[in-house]
């Protein structure tokens, strides 16, 4: 595949059309919710866009696809230059995508692709892969502990109505399918901190054979779960006997800190703020240019190398996720560390 240069270099070219359109470029951003990583994603986009002197109007759908549909209607009514969303639901969003395109407004999604319709570009990190990475680390731990991959692990699921949760669960469980001796206890939490806590308390309070805990979101989970473990008198550091293996997805500041402190073991860190680089491709689009399939490289960026592929749901730019372990927990490249 031909190797495109980092789109940042294209910036000057983009000036021209921006100049033709005298009005300031306005991006409509639709967040599915604002807690945890989502806030970071939004901030990331805002930073990148404002760096270009654009304006971003933001909305929050609060997990409600219909509300998101309404908000996108509002964007269309406002006549924004481009729409960026993190879809509450990958399929439900399609109605809105069609509308936007009918109105001639380019449509981008972050973090989750669409299913059943094509957007101008999706930029995402592979949640399925994130789950896999956690599972790998877990298996390694168990093999070391028992000499063979066996044991019990508690999976604290997100909201099963969302495909993020399903992907994170899927990657994890699919990987563990090859290890029949590892028992997974799954508890739904709807991302709610108190449910993380009570599930941990209940399960580990009623049985002593739980070796590890996998959190669909370590930004919500880490502190809560550690607190619960302390309640149960089961909070031990790495290496101590009875240490409960903690892994999860997000790579939040707390998670990284916990890894450094030896309480936690693994986090699949997403390039969350880097999603904002989608602004570069929006700029191109406004200049009438389409993305080129292939690899995108930027020196020193954790998300690099990213790959752009063309699917039936439009162009998809996959950013690399990083499995954080005690070894690389200090890396400044991780979003959780700055």
């Amino acid at each position, binding site marked *: 595949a031909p190797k495109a240069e980092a789109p940042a270099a294209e910036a000057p070219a983009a000036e021209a059309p921006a100049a033709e359109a005298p009005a300031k470029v306005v991006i409509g951003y639709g967040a599915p919710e*604002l*807690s*945890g990583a*989502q*806030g*970071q994603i939004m*901030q990331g986009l805002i930073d990148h866009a404002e760096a270009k002197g654009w304006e971003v109007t933001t909305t929050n759908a609060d997990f409600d696809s219909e509300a998101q549909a309404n908000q996108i209607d509002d964007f269309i009514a406002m006549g924004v230059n481009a729409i960026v969303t993190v879809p509450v639901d990958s399929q439900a969003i399609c109605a809105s995508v069609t509308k936007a395109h009918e109105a001639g407004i380019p449509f981008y999604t972050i973090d989750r692709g669409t299913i059943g319709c094509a957007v101008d570009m999706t930029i995402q990190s592979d949640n399925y892969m994130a789950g896999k990475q956690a599972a790998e680390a877990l298996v390694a731990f168990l093999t070391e502990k028992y000499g063979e991959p066996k044991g019990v692990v508690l999976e604290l*699921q997100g909201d*099963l109505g969302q495909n993020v949760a399903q992907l994170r669960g899927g990657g994890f469980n699919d990987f563990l399918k090859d290890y029949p001796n590892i028992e997974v*206890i*799954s*508890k*739904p939490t709807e991302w*709610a*901190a*108190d449910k993380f*806590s*009570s*599930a941990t*308390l*209940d*399960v580990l*309070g*009623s*049985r002593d054979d739980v070796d590890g805990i996998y959190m669909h979101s370590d*930004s*919500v989970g*880490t*502190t*809560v779960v*550690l*607190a*619960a473990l*302390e*309640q*149960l008198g089961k909070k031990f550091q790495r290496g101590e006997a009875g240490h409960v293996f903690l892994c999860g997805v997000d790579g*939040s*500041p*707390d998670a990284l800190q916990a890894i450094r402190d030896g309480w936690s073991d693994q986090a699949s860190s997403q390039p969350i703020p880097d999603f904002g680089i989608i602004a570069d491709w929006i700029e191109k689009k406004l200049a009438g240019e389409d993305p080129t399939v292939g690899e995108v490289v930027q020196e020193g960026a954790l998300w690099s190398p990213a790959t752009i592929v063309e699917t039936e749901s439009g162009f998809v730019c996959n950013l690399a996720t990083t499995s954080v372990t005690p070894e690389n927990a200090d890396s400044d490249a991780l979003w*959780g560390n700055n």
Partner: protein
Amino acid sequence: MNKAQKKDWVKLILDNFIWIILAVLFTYFAVNIPNFTLKSNLINILLHASVLGILAIGQTIVLLTGNFDLSAEGMVSLSTIFAMWLMLEPGIRGEAQGSGLMMNPFLVIPIILLLGTIVGFLVGTMITQLKMNGFIVTLAMQLSLRGAAMILSNGQIMTGSPKAFNWLGSAKVAGFPVSIIVTILMFLFVNYLLNNSKFGRELRAVGANPDAAAASGFNPKRTITLAYTIGGFLAAFAGWMLLGRLETSISTLGEGYTLETVAASVIGGVSLKGGVGSVGGAFAGVMLLSLIDNALNLMSVDSFWVEAVRGFIILIALLIEAQKFRYKPKVIHEPAIEKPAVSGTK
């Protein structure tokens, strides 16, 4: 009179029916779920019941006056976020900015309790003095409080509350969590108070018939306002407890607690029309919910089934509970009078 005594027994059973259901359910779980009766697990059940319990006390007090309080869960969210905001260092943790005041927990605790009390008082005043619709006022207040929490926290998770602050939520005495002890004491105290104090009489009288209460020399407005004030205080208190346990807060914390507390109270025999019910009953209701949740966590129920099963068990419990109406005589002597607009609910 002998006959009457027998009837009193029936009455006694009917009035405490929820406890029987609770006992039955407990035995069922104890028999069918391994490790259910482990000390650690029993403690867990109580632990879940503690925060919800504190909130249920507040909710019950308000319900007794014939009003709703939907704002409490908002206060849980704001009090925790506000406390964090006061205590955390400025923004080393991602976006979640502390104010940098790095305030001492022993200062923060009274502050948030005061916050809760004041908000409760405001709600009460709006409803009684300005005659605003209680349901919407408290709903709107919930939105506003959550919103404020979201603004303070940028919608971010705030973690790492200091040890001193967490005492209530996480400390133990002789292996027994403080929060449980406090909650149980609180229930005993309030229950005794409401059954033996003038205030208790006043609450129920006002709830059952505000006009008659007024004509009996009570002051419905004062009572209702006081009820909401207490509710606000307890909400903040619950927030303190919860934050202590989670060491984490987020503006969405406590979502859905309103329904749970109302459900618990009503299952425990508190009437939504006001005037009847006790905090003790509400406690039973809370225990029921917490029992169910715990059992669901211990049983290997498919995640997709949890919600349905939960609702179903509650329904069954309520169904049995409701059948006592068959043993209650019909009333032929009271025109079911509709309450006037004292609480604003036209």
